[in-house]
Protein backbone atom coordinates (compact mmCIF):
# COMPACT_ATOMS: atom_id res chain seq x y z
CA UNK A 1 0.00 0.00 0.00
CA UNK A 2 1.45 3.27 -1.10
CA UNK A 3 0.57 6.40 0.79
CA UNK A 4 2.06 9.84 1.13
CA UNK A 5 4.43 10.48 4.01
CA UNK A 6 1.69 12.33 5.82
CA UNK A 7 -1.99 12.72 5.06
CA UNK A 8 -4.56 15.22 6.20
CA UNK A 9 -5.93 12.77 8.70
CA UNK A 10 -2.58 12.65 10.45
CA UNK A 11 -2.50 16.40 10.77
CA UNK A 12 -5.84 16.38 12.57
CA UNK A 13 -4.89 13.67 15.04
CA UNK A 14 -3.67 14.76 18.47
CA UNK A 15 -1.33 11.77 18.52
CA UNK A 16 0.59 13.21 15.58
CA UNK A 17 1.10 16.52 17.32
CA UNK A 18 2.11 14.95 20.61
CA UNK A 19 4.59 12.65 18.89
CA UNK A 20 6.00 15.42 16.69
CA UNK A 21 6.44 17.70 19.67
CA UNK A 22 8.59 15.17 21.47
CA UNK A 23 10.57 14.44 18.34
CA UNK A 24 11.17 18.16 17.99
CA UNK A 25 12.33 18.31 21.61
CA UNK A 26 14.81 15.52 20.95
CA UNK A 27 15.99 17.34 17.83
CA UNK A 28 16.49 20.57 19.75
CA UNK A 29 18.39 18.72 22.49
CA UNK A 30 20.76 17.15 19.98
CA UNK A 31 21.42 20.25 17.92
CA UNK A 32 21.38 22.49 20.99
CA UNK A 33 24.21 20.52 22.59
CA UNK A 34 26.53 21.09 19.67
CA UNK A 35 25.26 24.63 19.11
CA UNK A 36 25.96 25.74 22.66
CA UNK A 37 29.43 24.19 22.65
CA UNK A 38 30.34 25.99 19.43
CA UNK A 39 28.83 29.30 20.53
CA UNK A 40 30.68 29.21 23.86
CA UNK A 41 33.97 28.39 22.13
CA UNK A 42 33.89 31.34 19.77
CA UNK A 43 35.62 33.78 22.16
CA UNK A 44 38.54 31.39 22.62
CA UNK A 45 39.16 30.87 18.93
CA UNK A 46 38.71 34.59 18.34
CA UNK A 47 41.33 35.52 20.89
CA UNK A 48 43.96 32.86 20.34
CA UNK A 49 42.96 30.82 17.30
CA UNK A 50 44.40 27.35 16.98
CA UNK A 51 47.16 28.01 19.51
CA UNK A 52 44.55 26.85 22.03
CA UNK A 53 45.02 23.33 20.71
CA UNK A 54 48.80 23.39 20.65
CA UNK A 55 49.64 25.45 23.75
CA UNK A 56 51.54 23.43 26.33
CA UNK A 57 50.54 25.51 29.30
CA UNK A 58 46.93 25.55 30.54
CA UNK A 59 47.20 28.73 32.56
CA UNK A 60 49.42 30.66 30.21
CA UNK A 61 49.93 34.43 30.71
CA UNK A 62 46.56 35.27 29.19
CA UNK A 63 46.09 32.29 27.00
CA UNK A 64 45.03 28.72 27.56
CA UNK A 65 46.75 25.71 26.06
CA UNK A 66 45.02 22.36 25.74
CA UNK A 67 47.77 20.16 24.30
CA UNK A 68 48.64 18.25 27.52
CA UNK A 69 44.98 17.29 27.95
CA UNK A 70 44.55 16.29 24.31
CA UNK A 71 47.75 14.24 24.59
CA UNK A 72 46.49 12.63 27.81
CA UNK A 73 43.17 11.68 26.24
CA UNK A 74 44.80 10.17 23.17
CA UNK A 75 47.44 8.34 25.21
CA UNK A 76 44.93 6.80 27.64
CA UNK A 77 42.67 5.79 24.74
CA UNK A 78 45.68 4.20 23.03
CA UNK A 79 46.68 2.19 26.11
CA UNK A 80 43.05 1.19 26.63
CA UNK A 81 42.63 -0.19 23.13
CA UNK A 82 46.02 -1.89 23.30
CA UNK A 83 44.99 -3.92 26.35
CA UNK A 84 41.30 -4.36 25.59
CA UNK A 85 41.67 -5.46 21.98
CA UNK A 86 43.29 -8.91 22.35
CA UNK A 87 41.04 -9.97 25.23
CA UNK A 88 37.90 -8.61 23.61
CA UNK A 89 38.68 -10.13 20.24
CA UNK A 90 39.65 -13.47 21.76
CA UNK A 91 36.45 -13.70 23.78
CA UNK A 92 34.34 -12.54 20.84
CA UNK A 93 35.80 -15.23 18.56
CA UNK A 94 35.41 -17.90 21.21
CA UNK A 95 31.84 -16.88 22.05
CA UNK A 96 30.67 -16.51 18.47
CA UNK A 97 32.41 -19.51 16.92
CA UNK A 98 32.74 -22.15 19.60
CA UNK A 99 29.98 -21.69 22.17
CA UNK A 100 26.52 -23.22 21.96
CA UNK A 101 23.55 -20.85 22.26
CA UNK A 102 23.02 -21.07 26.02
CA UNK A 103 26.54 -20.26 27.29
CA UNK A 104 26.75 -17.71 24.50
CA UNK A 105 23.74 -15.86 25.87
CA UNK A 106 25.27 -16.11 29.32
CA UNK A 107 28.45 -14.40 28.09
CA UNK A 108 26.34 -11.69 26.44
CA UNK A 109 24.45 -11.11 29.69
CA UNK A 110 27.71 -10.90 31.66
CA UNK A 111 28.97 -8.29 29.19
CA UNK A 112 25.77 -6.31 29.57
CA UNK A 113 26.14 -6.23 33.36
CA UNK A 114 29.85 -5.35 33.08
CA UNK A 115 29.02 -2.46 30.77
CA UNK A 116 26.47 -1.31 33.33
CA UNK A 117 28.88 -1.10 36.27
CA UNK A 118 28.97 2.62 37.14
CA UNK A 119 32.15 4.46 36.20
CA UNK A 120 32.61 5.63 39.76
CA UNK A 121 32.79 2.01 41.00
CA UNK A 122 35.54 1.32 38.47
CA UNK A 123 37.21 4.49 39.69
CA UNK A 124 37.13 3.30 43.28
CA UNK A 125 38.48 -0.06 42.16
CA UNK A 126 41.26 1.63 40.22
CA UNK A 127 42.16 3.87 43.13
CA UNK A 128 42.21 1.22 45.85
CA UNK A 129 43.67 -1.71 43.89
CA UNK A 130 44.88 -0.98 40.37
CA UNK A 131 46.99 2.07 41.21
CA UNK A 132 48.67 0.10 44.01
CA UNK A 133 49.41 -2.81 41.71
CA UNK A 134 50.82 -0.59 39.01
CA UNK A 135 53.01 1.14 41.58
CA UNK A 136 54.36 -2.15 42.95
CA UNK A 137 54.76 -3.99 39.66
CA UNK A 138 56.51 -1.15 37.84
CA UNK A 139 58.25 0.16 40.95
CA UNK A 140 56.89 3.70 40.72
CA UNK A 141 56.72 6.41 43.35
CA UNK A 142 53.08 7.06 42.58
CA UNK A 143 50.67 4.56 41.02
CA UNK A 144 48.54 7.31 39.50
CA UNK A 145 49.63 7.63 35.90
CA UNK A 146 48.48 7.78 32.30
CA UNK A 147 49.20 4.06 32.07
CA UNK A 148 46.98 3.28 35.08
CA UNK A 149 44.13 5.31 33.61
CA UNK A 150 44.53 3.53 30.27
CA UNK A 151 44.49 0.13 31.96
CA UNK A 152 41.34 1.01 33.87
CA UNK A 153 39.72 2.24 30.65
CA UNK A 154 40.66 -1.04 28.98
CA UNK A 155 38.60 -2.85 31.60
CA UNK A 156 35.75 -0.40 31.14
CA UNK A 157 35.50 -0.68 27.34
CA UNK A 158 36.10 -4.43 27.25
CA UNK A 159 32.40 -5.40 27.38
CA UNK A 160 31.41 -2.91 24.65
CA UNK A 161 34.12 -4.08 22.26
CA UNK A 162 33.51 -7.75 23.05
CA UNK A 163 29.78 -7.75 22.58
CA UNK A 164 29.81 -5.63 19.39
CA UNK A 165 32.62 -7.73 17.85
CA UNK A 166 30.68 -10.83 18.74
CA UNK A 167 27.61 -9.44 16.97
CA UNK A 168 29.76 -8.74 13.91
CA UNK A 169 31.10 -12.28 13.89
CA UNK A 170 27.62 -13.76 14.29
CA UNK A 171 26.43 -11.68 11.35
CA UNK A 172 28.75 -13.58 9.00
CA UNK A 173 26.36 -15.94 7.15
CA UNK A 174 26.62 -19.55 8.16
CA UNK A 175 27.09 -20.78 4.59
CA UNK A 176 30.63 -19.33 4.50
CA UNK A 177 31.60 -21.38 7.53
CA UNK A 178 29.97 -24.47 6.06
CA UNK A 179 31.89 -23.99 2.83
CA UNK A 180 35.14 -23.76 4.78
CA UNK A 181 34.31 -26.87 6.78
CA UNK A 182 33.44 -28.79 3.64
CA UNK A 183 36.88 -27.86 2.30
CA UNK A 184 38.35 -29.58 5.32
CA UNK A 185 39.26 -26.52 7.41
CA UNK A 186 38.91 -27.01 11.12
CA UNK A 187 36.94 -24.65 13.36
CA UNK A 188 39.94 -22.60 14.47
CA UNK A 189 41.14 -22.03 10.91
CA UNK A 190 37.60 -21.19 9.84
CA UNK A 191 37.24 -18.70 12.67
CA UNK A 192 40.46 -16.88 11.86
CA UNK A 193 40.63 -17.19 8.08
CA UNK A 194 36.95 -16.92 7.15
CA UNK A 195 34.78 -15.37 9.87
CA UNK A 196 37.28 -12.86 11.22
CA UNK A 197 38.21 -11.24 7.88
CA UNK A 198 34.56 -11.06 6.88
CA UNK A 199 33.61 -9.47 10.17
CA UNK A 200 36.49 -7.00 10.05
CA UNK A 201 34.44 -3.87 9.29
CA UNK A 202 32.11 -4.67 12.18
CA UNK A 203 35.05 -5.29 14.49
CA UNK A 204 36.62 -1.97 13.49
CA UNK A 205 33.27 -0.38 14.28
CA UNK A 206 33.24 -2.06 17.68
CA UNK A 207 36.74 -0.78 18.48
CA UNK A 208 35.91 2.75 17.34
CA UNK A 209 32.79 2.85 19.50
CA UNK A 210 34.74 1.46 22.44
CA UNK A 211 37.51 4.02 22.12
CA UNK A 212 34.90 6.77 21.74
CA UNK A 213 33.46 5.63 25.05
CA UNK A 214 36.91 5.60 26.64
CA UNK A 215 37.57 9.19 25.58
CA UNK A 216 34.51 10.45 27.40
CA UNK A 217 34.95 8.65 30.71
CA UNK A 218 35.41 11.17 33.47
CA UNK A 219 35.30 10.20 37.13
CA UNK A 220 37.17 6.90 36.94
CA UNK A 221 40.02 8.55 35.05
CA UNK A 222 40.05 11.53 37.39
CA UNK A 223 40.78 9.27 40.33
CA UNK A 224 43.79 7.48 38.83
CA UNK A 225 45.43 9.71 36.21
CA UNK A 226 47.38 11.90 38.60
CA UNK A 227 46.05 15.27 37.53
CA UNK A 228 49.17 16.94 36.18
CA UNK A 229 48.69 19.20 33.14
CA UNK A 230 51.91 18.28 31.47
CA UNK A 231 53.07 16.15 28.57
CA UNK A 232 55.55 13.71 30.13
CA UNK A 233 59.23 13.91 29.25
CA UNK A 234 60.04 11.96 27.12
CA UNK A 235 56.59 12.06 25.56
CA UNK A 236 56.21 8.27 25.46
CA UNK A 237 56.78 7.88 29.19
CA UNK A 238 53.27 6.69 30.02
CA UNK A 239 54.10 6.02 33.66
CA UNK A 240 54.08 9.73 34.40
CA UNK A 241 50.99 11.43 35.80
CA UNK A 242 48.93 13.29 33.24
CA UNK A 243 45.53 14.76 32.56
CA UNK A 244 42.79 13.86 30.10
CA UNK A 245 40.23 16.30 28.73
CA UNK A 246 37.28 15.01 30.77
CA UNK A 247 39.33 14.82 33.96
CA UNK A 248 40.39 18.45 33.45
CA UNK A 249 36.76 19.44 32.91
CA UNK A 250 35.67 17.53 35.99
CA UNK A 251 38.31 19.20 38.14
CA UNK A 252 37.79 22.77 37.06
CA UNK A 253 34.19 23.12 35.92
CA UNK A 254 32.92 23.81 39.44
CA UNK A 255 35.25 26.76 40.04
CA UNK A 256 34.72 28.39 36.64
CA UNK A 257 31.00 27.70 36.48
CA UNK A 258 29.06 29.87 34.07
CA UNK A 259 31.30 32.76 33.07
CA UNK A 260 34.64 34.29 32.28
CA UNK A 261 37.39 33.33 29.87
CA UNK A 262 38.32 30.29 31.95
CA UNK A 263 34.79 28.94 31.45
CA UNK A 264 34.99 29.55 27.69
CA UNK A 265 38.30 27.69 27.61
CA UNK A 266 36.69 24.74 29.38
CA UNK A 267 33.76 24.75 26.95
CA UNK A 268 36.22 24.75 24.05
CA UNK A 269 37.92 21.77 25.65
CA UNK A 270 34.48 20.16 25.82
CA UNK A 271 33.95 20.90 22.14
CA UNK A 272 37.28 19.30 21.22
CA UNK A 273 36.32 16.22 23.26
CA UNK A 274 32.86 16.02 21.71
CA UNK A 275 34.22 16.33 18.18
CA UNK A 276 36.77 13.56 18.83
CA UNK A 277 34.14 11.26 20.33
CA UNK A 278 31.64 12.11 17.61
CA UNK A 279 34.07 11.30 14.78
CA UNK A 280 34.96 7.97 16.36
CA UNK A 281 31.35 7.10 16.99
CA UNK A 282 30.11 8.06 13.53
CA UNK A 283 32.98 6.16 11.93
CA UNK A 284 32.14 3.20 14.17
CA UNK A 285 28.46 3.27 13.20
CA UNK A 286 29.41 3.54 9.55
CA UNK A 287 31.58 0.44 9.82
CA UNK A 288 28.80 -1.42 11.64
CA UNK A 289 26.19 -0.65 8.96
CA UNK A 290 28.67 -1.60 6.24
CA UNK A 291 29.09 -4.94 7.94
CA UNK A 292 25.34 -5.41 8.09
CA UNK A 293 24.74 -4.60 4.44
CA UNK A 294 27.64 -6.74 3.22
Amino acid at each position, binding site marked *: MKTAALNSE*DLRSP*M*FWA*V*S*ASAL*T*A*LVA*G*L*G*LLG*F*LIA*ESVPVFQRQGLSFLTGAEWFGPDEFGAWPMIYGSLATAFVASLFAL*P*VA*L*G*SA*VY*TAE*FLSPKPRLAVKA*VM*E*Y*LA*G*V*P*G*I*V*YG*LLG*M*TLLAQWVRNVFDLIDGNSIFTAGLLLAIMI*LPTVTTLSEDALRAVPRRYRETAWSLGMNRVATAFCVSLPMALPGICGAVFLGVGRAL*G*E*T*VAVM*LVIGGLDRVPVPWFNLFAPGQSI*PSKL*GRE*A*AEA*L*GGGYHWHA*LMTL*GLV*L*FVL*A*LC*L*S*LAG*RWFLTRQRSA
Partner: protein
Amino acid sequence: MLRAFTLIACGLLIFVLSVAIIRGLPAIDLVFLTAESKNFGLEGGIFYQTLGTLILISGAAAVGLPIALGSALFQTEYLRRAPRLKKSFRVLMDALNSAPTIVFGLVGYLVFGAAFGVSWLTGAFILAVMILPTMQSSMVEAFEALPESYRETGQSLGLGRGAIIRSILLPQCFYGAATGLFLGLARAAGETAAILFTATTFSGVTIPESASDPATTLQTHIFTLAQEGLDPRAVENAWGAALVLLTLVFALLSAAIWVRSRLHWESAV
Protein backbone atom coordinates in the same frame (compact mmCIF):
# COMPACT_ATOMS: atom_id res chain seq x y z
CA MET B 1 43.92 -19.41 24.64
CA LEU B 2 40.64 -18.06 23.33
CA ARG B 3 38.83 -19.69 26.20
CA ALA B 4 41.22 -18.06 28.66
CA PHE B 5 40.38 -14.63 27.23
CA THR B 6 36.67 -15.35 27.59
CA LEU B 7 37.21 -16.49 31.16
CA ILE B 8 39.18 -13.31 31.90
CA ALA B 9 36.40 -11.17 30.44
CA CYS B 10 33.65 -12.94 32.36
CA GLY B 11 35.81 -13.24 35.45
CA LEU B 12 35.97 -9.45 35.57
CA LEU B 13 32.32 -9.31 36.60
CA ILE B 14 32.93 -11.76 39.43
CA PHE B 15 36.02 -9.80 40.41
CA VAL B 16 34.23 -6.45 40.50
CA LEU B 17 31.31 -7.93 42.42
CA SER B 18 33.43 -9.74 44.97
CA VAL B 19 35.67 -6.74 45.63
CA ALA B 20 32.59 -4.58 46.13
CA ILE B 21 31.07 -7.12 48.49
CA ILE B 22 34.26 -7.82 50.46
CA ARG B 23 35.10 -4.16 50.87
CA GLY B 24 31.57 -2.81 51.06
CA LEU B 25 29.73 -5.28 53.24
CA PRO B 26 31.62 -4.47 56.48
CA ALA B 27 30.45 -0.86 56.16
CA ILE B 28 26.80 -1.74 55.68
CA ASP B 29 24.39 -2.19 58.52
CA LEU B 30 20.92 -0.86 59.29
CA VAL B 31 22.30 2.41 60.63
CA PHE B 32 24.41 2.95 57.50
CA LEU B 33 21.36 2.56 55.29
CA THR B 34 18.99 4.68 57.34
CA ALA B 35 21.10 7.44 58.91
CA GLU B 36 22.27 10.69 57.42
CA SER B 37 25.99 11.11 56.85
CA LYS B 38 28.00 12.87 59.53
CA ASN B 39 31.47 14.29 59.79
CA PHE B 40 31.89 14.62 56.00
CA GLY B 41 30.89 11.05 55.30
CA LEU B 42 33.31 9.48 57.75
CA GLU B 43 30.48 8.58 60.09
CA GLY B 44 26.77 8.00 59.80
CA GLY B 45 25.07 6.59 56.75
CA ILE B 46 23.92 7.20 53.23
CA PHE B 47 20.16 7.56 53.58
CA TYR B 48 19.85 10.91 51.84
CA GLN B 49 22.41 9.94 49.22
CA THR B 50 20.32 6.91 48.24
CA LEU B 51 17.20 9.05 48.25
CA GLY B 52 18.94 11.66 46.08
CA THR B 53 19.94 9.09 43.47
CA LEU B 54 16.36 7.82 43.38
CA ILE B 55 14.96 11.36 43.08
CA LEU B 56 17.30 12.22 40.24
CA ILE B 57 16.66 9.07 38.20
CA SER B 58 12.88 9.31 38.74
CA GLY B 59 12.95 12.91 37.60
CA ALA B 60 15.05 12.00 34.58
CA ALA B 61 12.64 9.21 33.66
CA ALA B 62 9.58 11.43 34.12
CA VAL B 63 11.03 14.03 31.76
CA GLY B 64 12.79 11.69 29.35
CA LEU B 65 10.26 8.88 28.91
CA PRO B 66 7.55 10.81 27.03
CA ILE B 67 10.15 12.45 24.80
CA ALA B 68 11.86 9.15 24.05
CA LEU B 69 8.57 7.39 23.40
CA GLY B 70 7.27 10.17 21.19
CA SER B 71 10.41 10.55 19.15
CA ALA B 72 10.69 6.78 18.71
CA LEU B 73 7.10 6.67 17.42
CA PHE B 74 7.74 9.66 15.19
CA GLN B 75 10.77 7.95 13.73
CA THR B 76 9.18 4.55 13.13
CA GLU B 77 5.58 5.50 12.27
CA TYR B 78 5.49 8.97 10.77
CA LEU B 79 8.80 8.81 8.93
CA ARG B 80 8.01 5.45 7.33
CA ARG B 81 7.78 6.96 3.86
CA ALA B 82 10.74 9.28 4.36
CA PRO B 83 13.78 7.03 4.77
CA ARG B 84 16.21 9.93 4.35
CA LEU B 85 14.70 11.91 7.21
CA LYS B 86 14.49 8.77 9.27
CA LYS B 87 18.16 8.09 8.76
CA SER B 88 19.15 11.66 9.65
CA PHE B 89 17.14 11.43 12.84
CA ARG B 90 18.91 8.22 13.70
CA VAL B 91 22.33 9.76 13.09
CA LEU B 92 21.38 12.66 15.34
CA MET B 93 20.43 10.26 18.13
CA ASP B 94 23.71 8.37 17.64
CA ALA B 95 25.55 11.67 17.89
CA LEU B 96 23.73 12.54 21.11
CA ASN B 97 24.56 9.08 22.44
CA SER B 98 28.25 9.53 21.68
CA ALA B 99 28.54 12.81 23.59
CA PRO B 100 30.76 12.41 26.66
CA THR B 101 28.63 12.73 29.77
CA ILE B 102 30.67 15.58 31.21
CA VAL B 103 29.70 17.61 28.13
CA PHE B 104 26.05 17.12 29.07
CA GLY B 105 26.95 18.54 32.44
CA LEU B 106 28.66 21.63 30.97
CA VAL B 107 25.98 22.51 28.45
CA GLY B 108 23.16 21.40 30.74
CA TYR B 109 24.38 23.81 33.36
CA LEU B 110 24.20 26.66 30.87
CA VAL B 111 20.68 25.77 29.79
CA PHE B 112 18.91 24.40 32.87
CA GLY B 113 21.24 25.87 35.47
CA ALA B 114 20.30 29.32 34.22
CA ALA B 115 16.77 28.59 35.39
CA PHE B 116 17.30 26.51 38.52
CA GLY B 117 20.95 26.94 39.52
CA VAL B 118 22.81 23.99 41.02
CA SER B 119 19.74 21.91 41.82
CA TRP B 120 18.24 18.45 41.64
CA LEU B 121 15.93 19.64 38.87
CA THR B 122 18.87 20.74 36.72
CA GLY B 123 20.38 17.31 37.30
CA ALA B 124 17.15 15.53 36.40
CA PHE B 125 16.88 17.48 33.14
CA ILE B 126 20.52 16.80 32.26
CA LEU B 127 20.15 13.09 32.96
CA ALA B 128 16.92 13.04 30.94
CA VAL B 129 18.72 14.36 27.86
CA MET B 130 21.62 11.99 28.52
CA ILE B 131 19.47 8.84 28.65
CA LEU B 132 17.20 9.94 25.81
CA PRO B 133 19.13 8.07 23.07
CA THR B 134 19.44 4.94 25.24
CA MET B 135 15.70 4.76 25.83
CA GLN B 136 14.82 5.88 22.32
CA SER B 137 16.94 3.33 20.50
CA SER B 138 15.59 0.31 22.33
CA MET B 139 12.04 1.57 21.76
CA VAL B 140 12.73 2.03 18.05
CA GLU B 141 14.06 -1.52 18.00
CA ALA B 142 10.84 -2.84 19.53
CA PHE B 143 8.55 -0.85 17.21
CA GLU B 144 10.50 -1.95 14.17
CA ALA B 145 10.45 -5.57 15.22
CA LEU B 146 6.64 -5.58 15.44
CA PRO B 147 5.45 -7.57 12.41
CA GLU B 148 3.91 -5.43 9.69
CA SER B 149 0.77 -7.58 9.73
CA TYR B 150 -0.25 -6.00 13.05
CA ARG B 151 -0.31 -2.55 11.49
CA GLU B 152 -2.04 -3.82 8.36
CA THR B 153 -4.74 -5.42 10.46
CA GLY B 154 -5.36 -2.06 12.09
CA GLN B 155 -5.47 -0.31 8.74
CA SER B 156 -7.92 -2.84 7.35
CA LEU B 157 -10.21 -2.05 10.26
CA GLY B 158 -10.13 1.58 9.20
CA LEU B 159 -7.95 2.83 12.06
CA GLY B 160 -5.93 5.99 11.56
CA ARG B 161 -2.27 6.12 12.46
CA GLY B 162 -2.99 7.69 15.84
CA ALA B 163 -5.42 4.92 16.72
CA ILE B 164 -3.00 2.25 15.54
CA ILE B 165 -0.32 3.67 17.82
CA ARG B 166 -2.68 3.91 20.77
CA SER B 167 -4.42 0.57 20.52
CA ILE B 168 -1.93 -1.68 18.73
CA LEU B 169 1.64 -0.45 18.97
CA LEU B 170 1.77 0.73 22.56
CA PRO B 171 0.08 -2.34 24.09
CA GLN B 172 1.99 -4.78 21.87
CA CYS B 173 5.34 -3.11 22.43
CA PHE B 174 4.79 -2.36 26.11
CA TYR B 175 7.67 -4.58 27.17
CA GLY B 176 9.94 -2.99 24.59
CA ALA B 177 9.24 0.45 25.98
CA ALA B 178 9.76 -0.85 29.52
CA THR B 179 13.12 -2.30 28.50
CA GLY B 180 14.19 1.10 27.23
CA LEU B 181 12.99 2.74 30.41
CA PHE B 182 14.96 0.39 32.68
CA LEU B 183 18.13 0.64 30.58
CA GLY B 184 17.87 4.42 30.73
CA LEU B 185 17.31 4.37 34.50
CA ALA B 186 20.33 2.11 34.99
CA ARG B 187 22.47 4.45 32.93
CA ALA B 188 21.26 7.49 34.85
CA ALA B 189 21.86 5.81 38.21
CA GLY B 190 25.46 5.05 37.28
CA GLU B 191 26.29 8.54 36.07
CA THR B 192 28.50 10.84 38.10
CA ALA B 193 30.25 13.41 35.93
CA ALA B 194 27.13 15.05 34.49
CA ILE B 195 25.64 15.82 37.91
CA LEU B 196 28.85 16.40 39.85
CA PHE B 197 28.89 20.20 39.63
CA THR B 198 25.36 20.80 38.36
CA ALA B 199 23.01 19.09 40.78
CA THR B 200 24.75 18.03 43.94
CA THR B 201 26.66 19.24 46.92
CA PHE B 202 28.59 17.03 49.26
CA SER B 203 27.42 17.69 52.78
CA GLY B 204 24.56 19.16 54.74
CA VAL B 205 21.86 18.25 52.25
CA THR B 206 18.72 16.36 53.18
CA ILE B 207 15.56 16.29 51.09
CA PRO B 208 15.44 19.03 48.45
CA GLU B 209 12.43 21.18 49.24
CA SER B 210 12.26 23.53 46.28
CA ALA B 211 13.20 23.43 42.61
CA SER B 212 16.46 25.27 43.28
CA ASP B 213 17.77 23.02 46.08
CA PRO B 214 20.76 20.79 45.38
CA ALA B 215 20.60 17.08 46.14
CA THR B 216 23.24 14.64 47.27
CA THR B 217 23.67 11.31 45.52
CA LEU B 218 25.43 8.00 46.02
CA GLN B 219 27.63 8.56 42.97
CA THR B 220 28.95 11.96 43.97
CA HIS B 221 29.25 10.86 47.60
CA ILE B 222 31.51 7.97 46.59
CA PHE B 223 33.52 10.30 44.40
CA THR B 224 34.15 12.85 47.13
CA LEU B 225 35.03 10.15 49.66
CA ALA B 226 37.37 8.52 47.15
CA GLN B 227 39.18 11.82 46.66
CA GLU B 228 39.82 11.97 50.40
CA GLY B 229 41.66 8.73 49.78
CA LEU B 230 43.88 8.67 52.83
CA ASP B 231 41.38 8.08 55.60
CA PRO B 232 40.53 4.35 55.73
CA ARG B 233 37.10 5.17 57.16
CA ALA B 234 36.32 7.28 54.08
CA VAL B 235 37.37 4.48 51.74
CA GLU B 236 35.35 1.90 53.66
CA ASN B 237 32.22 4.05 53.55
CA ALA B 238 32.84 4.74 49.86
CA TRP B 239 32.82 0.99 49.20
CA GLY B 240 29.67 0.62 51.27
CA ALA B 241 27.95 3.25 49.15
CA ALA B 242 29.40 1.64 46.00
CA LEU B 243 27.86 -1.71 46.93
CA VAL B 244 24.46 -0.08 47.41
CA LEU B 245 24.79 1.74 44.07
CA LEU B 246 25.91 -1.42 42.30
CA THR B 247 22.92 -3.30 43.71
CA LEU B 248 20.57 -0.59 42.48
CA VAL B 249 22.08 -0.50 38.98
CA PHE B 250 22.14 -4.29 38.64
CA ALA B 251 18.53 -4.52 39.82
CA LEU B 252 17.53 -2.05 37.09
CA LEU B 253 19.57 -3.94 34.48
CA SER B 254 18.01 -7.23 35.54
CA ALA B 255 14.57 -5.66 35.22
CA ALA B 256 15.50 -4.53 31.69
CA ILE B 257 16.76 -7.97 30.71
CA TRP B 258 13.69 -9.63 32.22
CA VAL B 259 11.11 -7.47 30.46
CA ARG B 260 13.03 -7.77 27.21
CA SER B 261 12.76 -11.54 27.41
CA ARG B 262 8.96 -11.17 27.59
CA LEU B 263 8.79 -9.22 24.36
CA HIS B 264 7.73 -11.56 21.60
CA TRP B 265 4.93 -11.73 19.09
CA GLU B 266 2.90 -14.37 17.36
CA SER B 267 4.78 -15.07 14.19
CA ALA B 268 3.82 -12.86 11.29
CA VAL B 269 0.99 -14.25 9.21
